[in-house]
């Protein structure tokens, strides 16, 4: 057991020792360049940057989706107005309708649609296909990088899309084959094809309207128009 003097001395030594240790730690804590302080400072920033990276990547995906949708609007409009071709096609036209002759002017609807989409989209597409009236594709993945002194965030997200083309390509393909078959067999188109059409000057004019959503198109001003697929065939 320590006597009264010994306990006083022990307390003083203990206090001075503790003071030296705590004072040294306190001096370290004042220095913002120490690893501990940098880590402590970056710790919250990392969590914020993770959330921010997600937002930036999602914003890019959103923009990419919009670009796809607008390109599909333009493609479907031009494709439908020109009987499955682009507007600069060399087919015969009658009253603004492209005349399909099933020889020189006989569009491969799926292939033409994809080519026209690529023209409007204007960016590299990894994969692109039409399936059940949807355009499926994959683009370069979206990535967002953020570097800090003590962190390096790399956020990557796959960029795939599935966009309704807003016209029934399957039905139009079937109709075209039916019309061709009827004409080859020299049958009366009205009874044979089962679809209403207009007749004028020995031509049959088909306008396949769609009850799906409208296309937002910029002409003289912005318009919402129903997608249609128009073509004519010689019927004399």
């Amino acid at each position: 057991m320590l006597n009264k003097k010994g306990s006083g001395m022990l307390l003083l030594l203990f206090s001075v020792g503790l003071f030296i240790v705590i004072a040294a730690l306190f001096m370290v804590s004042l220095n913002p360049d120490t690893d501990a302080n940098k880590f402590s400072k970056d710790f919250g920033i990392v969590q914020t940057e993770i959330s921010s990276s997600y937002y930036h990547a999602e914003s890019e995906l959103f923009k990419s989706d919009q670009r796809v949708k607008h390109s599909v609007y333009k493609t479907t409009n031009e494709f439908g107005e020109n009987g499955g071709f682009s507007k600069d096609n060399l087919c015969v036209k009658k009253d603004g309708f492209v005349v399909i002759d099933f020889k020189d002017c006989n569009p491969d609807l799926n292939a033409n649609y994809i080519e026209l989409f690529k023209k409007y989209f204007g960016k590299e597409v990894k994969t692109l296909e039409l399936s059940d009236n949807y355009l499926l594709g994959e683009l370069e993945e979206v990535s967002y990088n953020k570097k800090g002194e003590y962190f390096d965030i790399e956020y990557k997200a796959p960029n795939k899309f599935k966009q309704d083309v807003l016209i029934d390509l399957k039905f139009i393909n079937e109709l075209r084959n039916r019309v061709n078959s009827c004409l080859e067999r020299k049958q009366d188109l009205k009874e044979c094809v089962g679809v209403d059409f207009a007749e004028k000057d020995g031509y049959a004019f088909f306008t396949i309207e769609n009850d799906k959503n409208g296309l937002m198109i910029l002409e003289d001003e912005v318009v919402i128009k129903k997608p249609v697929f128009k073509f004519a065939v010689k019927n004399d």
Partner: protein
Amino acid sequence: MKKGHASYLMLVYGLAILVVTLLLAALMFSARNPFSGKEEIRVNSDVEVDLLNYVRTPLDIDGQSFTMADLIVYSYYKKDFSKVEEYTKNLLNPVYKDMCAYTITYFTPDFDFHVVNNIDDIGKDIDTAEISILGLNEEVINVMVTQIC
């Protein structure tokens, strides 16, 4: 100096140094250490997610399915944001009620349009987020939300 007196002084000094040391330790380890140089970090993730959801919200306009972003693009070309204002208020006012004030600004270098909810600013913490919407010819229409809760 008497032996008892010296021992008493050591005890007093020891206690005084201990108290100072503990105060220093308390200051160093306190959550609000004034010397640590920590900066306040504002986390905008809530308002950013709200903004993403806002522009992606599906709308039925005259039987046509569009998103809020489509409506904004359409309004931008029409130079008429009345439908955007109507749909935005119908969408957000029931959610925000009287808890938060918001302002949504649609702007390009050429124009600036605001939709504001119907309550006054009620607090100090302002959160903002901004997103770009593409027009039909790749024009950029910026949408910024300011939220005060």
